[in-house]
């Protein structure tokens, strides 16, 4: 698969503060790429550089085989964007705003526009100042999805949407995928990324610290195991990769990395296992591996990657 976005060694600073510090990111054609990180990690800055709104300090950035700073107009015909915090013109109706953006890109898909207004239950006659945050977000979503762009760049698109609308949004994004579009979805809503993204990049302090499909990430992350054994669990302590072992009577809890999983299972079966729960790491676990120990340095060192 060709890359629609490829970034290597991107840096960007604002005055003294370093927003991006050697960021690498690659989005393949036809995938939803989840761009995960808390506020201030550098997600929006990255997206703005991809849109040519900000200029990179160093590094190479290619979008749809173009230079996002130099080839603004030609690239933007093929890209649609939903800002993180949509601000509308107070005096313009939502419909006028959608059509303005459509006109700038030389027309929009009329049928899709009508359909989207309907599914998102958006009233296009309301003036900008009277929309709620969620409805402003919908205006930008409708404008982006009714364009014929190949690449959708979405910056926390569902902030302010209620859970029902979030579900609608996911449905619409899946539909975009069937049309062959690629999506770069920045978010801090794990469930959204988990359910939509083919691949995920986790960004921390201006760097991508982990990237891959959820499965790949899981394979080198730790699995949580809980078991009830008929005799002691002495053998578990010797297995490489087992950590956080807790024994409460006949119950044992521990986590184990992929390399030690087979050995651990052997030990368990040798001790007469009568109940077993194996939980693969959730995205939240993966995320917390990079962020959860924000204060605890030692834990961070113990878990490289």
């Amino acid at each position, binding site marked *: 698969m060709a890359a629609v976005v490829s970034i290597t060694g991107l840096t960007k600073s604002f005055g003294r503060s370093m927003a991006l510090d050697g960021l690498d990111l690659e989005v393949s054609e036809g995938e939803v790429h989840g761009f995960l990180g808390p506020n201030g990690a550098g997600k929006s800055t990255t997206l*703005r550089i991809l849109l040519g709104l900000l200029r990179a300090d160093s590094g190479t950035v290619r979008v749809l085989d173009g230079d996002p700073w130099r080839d603004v107009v030609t690239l933007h015909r093929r*890209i649609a964007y939903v*800002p993180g*915090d949509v601000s509308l013109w107070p005096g*313009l*109706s939502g419909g*006028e705003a959608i*059509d303005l953006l459509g*006109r700038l890109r030389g027309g929009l898909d009329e049928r899709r526009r009508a359909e989207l207004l309907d599914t998102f239950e958006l009233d296009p006659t309301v003036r900008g100042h009277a929309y709620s945050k969620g409805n402003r977000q919908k205006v930008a979503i409708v404008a982006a999805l009714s364009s014929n762009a190949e690449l959708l760049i979405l910056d926390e698109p569902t902030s302010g949407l209620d859970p029902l609308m979030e579900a609608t949004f996911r449905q619409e994004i899946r539909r975009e995928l069937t049309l062959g579009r690629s999506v770069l979805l920045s978010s801090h809503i794990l469930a959204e990324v988990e359910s939509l993204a083919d691949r995920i990049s986790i960004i921390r302090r201006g760097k991508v610290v982990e990237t891959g499909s959820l499965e790949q990430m899981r394979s080198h992350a730790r699995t949580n195991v809980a078991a009830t054994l008929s005799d002691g669990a002495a053998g578990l302590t010797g297995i490489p990769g087992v950590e956080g072992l807790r024994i409460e009577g006949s119950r044992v809890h521990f986590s184990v990395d992929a390399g030690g999983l087979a050995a651990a299972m052997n030990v368990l079966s040798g001790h007469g296992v009568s109940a077993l729960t194996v939980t693969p790491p959730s995205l939240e676990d993966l995320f917390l591996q990079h962020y959860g120990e924000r204060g605890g340095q030692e834990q961070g060192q113990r878990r490289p990657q």
Partner: protein
Amino acid sequence: MNGAHAARAPLSGISVTGTPLTGTLALLRHAVRLDRWKLLPWLLVIGIFPTVSYSVYGSLFSTPLEAKALQLSLGTNPAFSLLFGPATDLGTAAGFTAWRVQMFGMFFAALMAVFTVTRHTRAAEESGRAELLDSGVVGRHARLASAVVLAWLASAAVTVLVGVALMVAGSAPAPAFALGGAFGGMGLAFAGVAAVTAQLGSTGRTANTLAATVLGVGYLLRGLGDTLDDSRWLLWTNPMGWAEEIRPASENDLRPLLLLLAAALALTLLAAWLESRRDFGAGLIASRGGPARGTLGTWRLTARLNRGAFWTWGVVFVALGSVYGLVATTMSGIFNDNPFVKQMIAFRLATEEQLLFAFVEVLLLVLAFIGGVFGIQVILRFHTEEDEGRAEWMLSAPLARLSYVMPTVVLAALGPAVGMAAGSAALATSARLAGSELDTAQVVFQGLAEVPALWLAAAVALFLVGLAPRVRAGAWLLLVYWLLLTMFGPVLKAPDWLLSTSPFHVVPNVLESNPDWLPVLWTTLLAAALLLAGLAGYRRRDLMSR
């Protein structure tokens, strides 16, 4: 609403029986804390300007005769009366100060009060700040009351500041506090006006515009009252006229202050009555829905965003021009009454026509200043789009930066020029209709001669937006500096090189046999250079994000 508050109060355990004003004091404290840095510049500018003027008086005129001469020569030009009120007594420092700063002080004190009240009422409702506060234990009218009281306190502070500062500079107490009282009184009354307009408009901008319109109309009425024959009664029709009737330094009559105070109270009560007749967030002038489809592109969007400003300033241009034209007819009366003028004409130092045109020139300068405001406003409006995050969205479409900014550049170049043409044409027309002998073509020509200076003002704003957006407000300061320098520089005997830093000063008089257009050409070239630099900067810089 009352029921809701009564139900909420016991929960918080503070008061069981809330009145409509419960919580006013708490809100007031909060408002003071929010506003201290916003009000300070107003207080300083309004408070210090009179003292500066008072202090330079001694160095200005070496003999009392010189002051008298200035008074007489100002008397030859009713434009000054129209703009700043009559110069009744320039023989004393206090009299000179009162004439020079009274209109400015009154105007700015009123604006300060208007902005303060709107900020804490309508604008707070609009931004959602008020909702948070109103859900606490506050009475129905508490927020309005706290806003008005804050503006009143600020107005009182202006009075005290002006009075004390002038006394420190050496003035007698009576004129010092009379001048301070005229400023403070305007603040009181216009806090009331803004309290009412905040109920009428559904946005802070509408509320401010309505109140400023009242102020502008008042300013015009009192100007006519000062200049037209037999129309002194016009002064009694509005707060600005009342404040002027205090006549600091010459009469020190504090009775009009009572009128201003009464107006302030009556208007505030009216506002409270209106407030209980509307819903939270809604104005009595309702905002309607819009069309479901749109056909806007960048050009029409720019037109749409500046539509309000265009028509507002268009009306101001034509209205001011027409009113100024009317005043031209009283010129011959003034020439006959004024012995100084009679002498000038007798000794062929000036013809009546020249004196008339000198009058027109000063008024055109005021129109030009408005044109400058309009141009800068158009440019800064463009930056607001970036500031509020809409430019980011627009530029995510296939739209180059230069194509995005171009409609704004064209509007900033043409809009003020059209306004200037319309204003000067209106001036000449109304003057001719009233029987004056002004030549319309000459007046319009003189008006258009100011246009390059307006371009320079707008170009400075664009230069800043392109290269140093954080200090873009500097364009306003520069415009004010140019106006003050051009209006008062010659009176204050500023050196030529200093006067020449204002593009308005270097505009030649088109009646001269050999007008010098070179400075105007330079102004135009400088404007073009700044424009190009600004555009290049805007194309290359990072878009500011929120």
